[in-house]
């Protein structure tokens, strides 16, 4: 109680001070009174003094009356349940942003905040947004307005942290240039657009894929391979398709959204799994009519579901909601079939129709033989004849398997080499086997109306890569003349171009797997117990006893009797140097390039090393004569491994030659600037050093060898991976036998690199 009185007294005093300050600004004074009265009601009196202070600061920042009024207005509307601290934080942010970006930006911030406040429910999210805006105002004041305009739309589908990530990526990706920054924050930049779209749904398949894969594996012990099927512009809705060992799932099931979408995908995957496990033979199509094919498929669906339900009865809850047929439905062939489908799986369903009843009876009679796929053929055939006699129409072109979770059943059929098979069947087949390839870059850009822009940007990227600024010159060792030629090579550094192409998502999972594996080792991420310390959080029993014994025997020694936990050694600084020469674009038999695996290895290693709290940088090089040794910094030591770095990795290209020595010296310079117990330079290359202006192959080898030796003498460990099937006879010469590692099968490169890291951490 006493505290409340004191704080209320405080707020009374500060209120008087504020009133005195605002004397002469009558409208402001009135607004302050109104806001104060409103805040009084929130019952957070002890915060009022700080609020007065914030108003005072905002006023003193000289941003104009509109800004102060904006804040007062926000204060007046402040929701009672929210801490006034958040309000004060907004006021301070407005002041800081205003200082750097002008009063219009500050005013815009206050207006936007009042709109998005409900979406930023936690103080953490709010402060993430405010801090990001503060940084932006500091570095790129011209873009604050643009970013503020995007805040609302982004928060509609993502959180404050995502906004913060989007902003900080923009600041780094635009390399300090206002024009690029403006393009980024106007969303006129593919990387920006991609980051901005985080959390936005629309592609249910992509959202659910990982979960469905895990569910499939858990339920059926089959590791599924999914394919996304694009929605075809036909009136017939897409169904799941099990063609060719793949489970094709539509990117959305039209009409199913949110939880209903989850349910239909789940039901579809459970049904597909039932087929994979229980549909063991394929039926020959022979001379069967489309109707018979559809009916046999329907019985087979019911058969595999029934078998699945014997083991996992809960699946009925998954499937039943989609069976909505009722006895009052149309007596068309398709209508009767949906009723039969329901009758076979829903024991409580009543249907007076004779044909449905017959189907049910036939199926029930076959209970002893449910494990035999032949019954589907038999029962389906019988029921098909009946439909024929009932003279019901069946339109194969408009027929679609119902309910929606069931697959098109084409995988059940062996179409063989039947020249005279019914045309409808083939049409049916062709339509559903039309699987669109995912991750196909060409198909992606076709619907991108910003295409001309895209190519322009790519060109611009190429130009910056070509140019670059000369940043250093290095000597080169002429082994024939046994002399060092001073300032012989020139390093050109350029910004790493980014590419909006999505980066292989599997790298994250793989990196995580490595991290879990590595952290099980004592050395990574664990804390080290230091014994015999002067102070600490627990007694070191052994040291205490030893000390007491020494005391009793009369000798005096230091009282180091504590132990404490300390973070494990953060002792590695790794620079990963990628060879970007033309030959890294060569494809192996399976169509992968060395650059692809370098990229992947770099991504995995950078994520893993980052997570293990070591410092890692990723740089790349290529050369076009001694005056143009190009060097790109894809990730610096301080940068986090994030979307920007991934976009840069994706944007790497192969060109020109490999002047290794100069690149080694330059990379060594970056490592020399680090403070670390162990510095490691890791070179990934697919060939021996070469360059256009050097006819003698041995010359660059000897130079690189000398560069490596010099670095080693200065305490940097150098390892090199020779990627590809070459024997790399010179690699040993350059790096030393124990430090030159060969990776003939390029796909294992990430694994090898991580193994080396694990070794280094020991």
């Amino acid at each position, binding site marked *: 109680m006493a505290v409340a009185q004191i704080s209320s007294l405080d707020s009374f005093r500060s209120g008087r001070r504020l009133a005195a300050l605002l004397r002469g600004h009558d409208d402001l004074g009135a607004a302050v009174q109104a806001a104060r009265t409103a805040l009084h009601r929130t019952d957070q009196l002890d915060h009022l003094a700080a609020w007065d202070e914030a108003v005072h600061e905002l006023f003193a920042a000289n941003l104009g009356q509109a800004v102060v009024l904006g804040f007062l207005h926000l204060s007046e509307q402040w929701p009672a349940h929210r801490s006034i601290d958040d309000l004060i934080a907004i006021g301070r942010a407005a002041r800081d942003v205003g200082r750097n970006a002008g009063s219009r930006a500050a005013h815009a911030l206050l207006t936007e905040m009042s709109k998005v406040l409900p979406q930023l429910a936690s103080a953490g999210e709010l402060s993430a947004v405010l801090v990001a805006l503060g940084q932006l105002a500091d570095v790129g004041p011209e873009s604050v307005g643009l970013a503020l305009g995007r805040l609302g739309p982004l928060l509609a589908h993502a959180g404050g942290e995502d906004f913060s990530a989007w902003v900080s990526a923009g600041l780094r990706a635009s390399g300090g240039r206002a024009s690029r920054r403006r393009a980024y924050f106007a969303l006129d930049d593919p990387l920006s657009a991609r980051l901005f779209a985080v959390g936005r749904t629309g592609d249910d398949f992509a959202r659910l894929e990982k*979960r469905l894969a*895990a569910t499939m*594996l858990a*339920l059926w*012990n089959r590791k599924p391979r999914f394919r996304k099927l694009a929605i075809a512009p036909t009136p017939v809705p897409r169904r799941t398709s099990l063609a060719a060992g793949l489970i094709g799932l539509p990117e959305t099931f039209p009409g199913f959204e949110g939880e209903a979408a989850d349910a239909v995908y789940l039901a579809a995957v459970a049904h597909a799994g039932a087929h994979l496990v229980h549909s063991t033979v394929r039926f020959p199509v022979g001379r069967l009519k489309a109707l018979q094919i559809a009916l046999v498929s329907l019985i087979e669906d019911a058969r595999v579901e029934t078998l699945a339900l014997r083991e*996992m009865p809960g699946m009925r809850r998954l499937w039943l909601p989609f069976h909505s047929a009722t006895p009052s439905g149309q007596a068309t062939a398709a209508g009767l079939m949906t009723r039969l489908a329901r009758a076979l799986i829903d024991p409580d369903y009543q249907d007076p129709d004779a044909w449905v009843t017959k189907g049910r009876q036939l199926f029930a009679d076959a209970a002893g033989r449910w494990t035999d796929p032949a019954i589907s053929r038999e029962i389906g055939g019988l029921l098909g004849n009946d439909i024929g006699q009932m003279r019901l129409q069946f339109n194969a072109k408009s027929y679609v398997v119902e309910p929606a979770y069931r697959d098109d059943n084409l995988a059940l059929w062996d179409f063989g080499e039947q020249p005279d098979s019914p045309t409808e069947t083939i049409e049916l087949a062709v339509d559903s086997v039309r699987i669109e390839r995912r991750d196909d870059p060409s198909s992606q850009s076709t619907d991108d109306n910003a295409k001309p822009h895209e190519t322009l940007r790519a060109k611009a990227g190429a130009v910056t890569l070509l140019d670059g600024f000369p940043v250093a010159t290095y000597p080169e060792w002429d082994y024939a003349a046994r002399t060092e030629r001073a300032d012989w090579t020139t390093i050109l550094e350029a910004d790493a171009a980014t590419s909006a192409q999505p980066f292989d998502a599997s790298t994250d999972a793989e990196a995580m797997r490595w991290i879990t594996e590595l952290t099980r*080792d004592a050395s990574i991420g664990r804390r080290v117990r230091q014994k015999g310390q002067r102070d600490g959080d627990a007694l070191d029993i052994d040291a205490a*006893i030893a000390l007491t*014994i020494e005391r009793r025997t009369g000798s005096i020694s230091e009282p180091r009797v504590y132990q404490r936990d300390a973070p494990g050694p953060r002792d590695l600084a790794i620079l990963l140097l990628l060879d970007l020469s033309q030959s890294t674009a060569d494809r192996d038999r399976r169509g992968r390039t060395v650059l692809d695996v370098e990229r992947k290895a770099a991504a995995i290693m950078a994520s893993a090393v980052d997570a293990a709290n070591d410092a890692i940088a990723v740089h790349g090089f290529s050369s076009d004569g001694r005056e143009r040794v190009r060097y790109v910094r894809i990730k610096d030591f301080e940068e986090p491994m994030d979307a920007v770095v991934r976009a840069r990795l994706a944007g790497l290209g192969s060109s020109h030659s490999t002047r290794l020595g100069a690149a080694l010296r330059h990379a060594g310079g970056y490592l020399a600037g680090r403070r670390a117990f162990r510095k490691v330079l890791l070179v990934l290359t697919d060939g021996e050093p070469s360059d256009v202006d050097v006819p003698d192959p041995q010359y660059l080898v000897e130079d690189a060898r000398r560069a490596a030796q010099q670095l080693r003498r200065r305490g940097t460990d150098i390892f090199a991976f020779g990627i590809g099937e070459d024997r790399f006879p010179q690699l040993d010469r350059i790096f030393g036998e124990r430090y030159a590692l060969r990776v003939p099968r390029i796909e294992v490169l990430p694994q090898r690199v991580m193994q080396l890291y694990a070794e280094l951490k020991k």
Partner: protein
Amino acid sequence: MSNPALLLDQYRIREEPYYRSLKDEVELFGAAYASRMPVMLKGPTGCGKTRFIEYMAWRLGRPLITVACHEDMTAADLVGRWLLDAEGTVWSDGPLTTAVRLGAICYLDEVVEARQDTTVVIHPLTDDRRVLPLEKRGELIHAHSDFQLVISYNPGYQSAIKDLKESTKQRFAALDFGYPDRPAETEVVSREAGIEPDLADLLVKIAQHSRNLKGQGLDEGASTRMLVNAGRLIGCGISLEKACETTIVVPLTDDADTRNALRDVISACA
């Protein structure tokens, strides 16, 4: 506790622990004990390794001294150290030394967790010397004729980096434990959790499906121990879904997709 008989008494297992034998492991262990051969129990967590050794100790009538190994464990924590009293220094035996002196079964649980230099102290005990040198005390203990050393480790935690030293590994006879087959596991869960066999069978089914995810989102599937926990909650009137959520889904993983997959399994099986 200077009286050895009294000291040992506290480690004695008085009542028969429930253990359902799976194969011939009881017979094998009995034979190994007969020649005091060191034994290593391998198997995933929660499959019954500790229960087995308790059962065997009871069956053989030997006291059981269990040490849970951890990364900060030093050799002194195992063999003992000098302590002080009013008179001066006194030696206090560690659990391993007690077992060696008095003839108990010493069980080092999750031995890979201990640092490799710590595990080396067991070497002289595990070959035909059967001695334990107490360096700090200048004493060499010849193991009591009833002493036996048993260690456990979970191959799931094993990686290229963290493993037993070859020189340690080769001293042990090894019994491989896995999860029991469905009827046996059902029996164990039903009996341990005190629930109907049908319900136990359902839990086992869920666990078997979850084990499909091993290495694909889960490090291990649901263990028998988890099922017993789930069964006990159900026995207290908690619904199956909630019990499984609490004892299986949430403990196993933090990954949202994998959790959902587990929930899908539970709802599909129930």
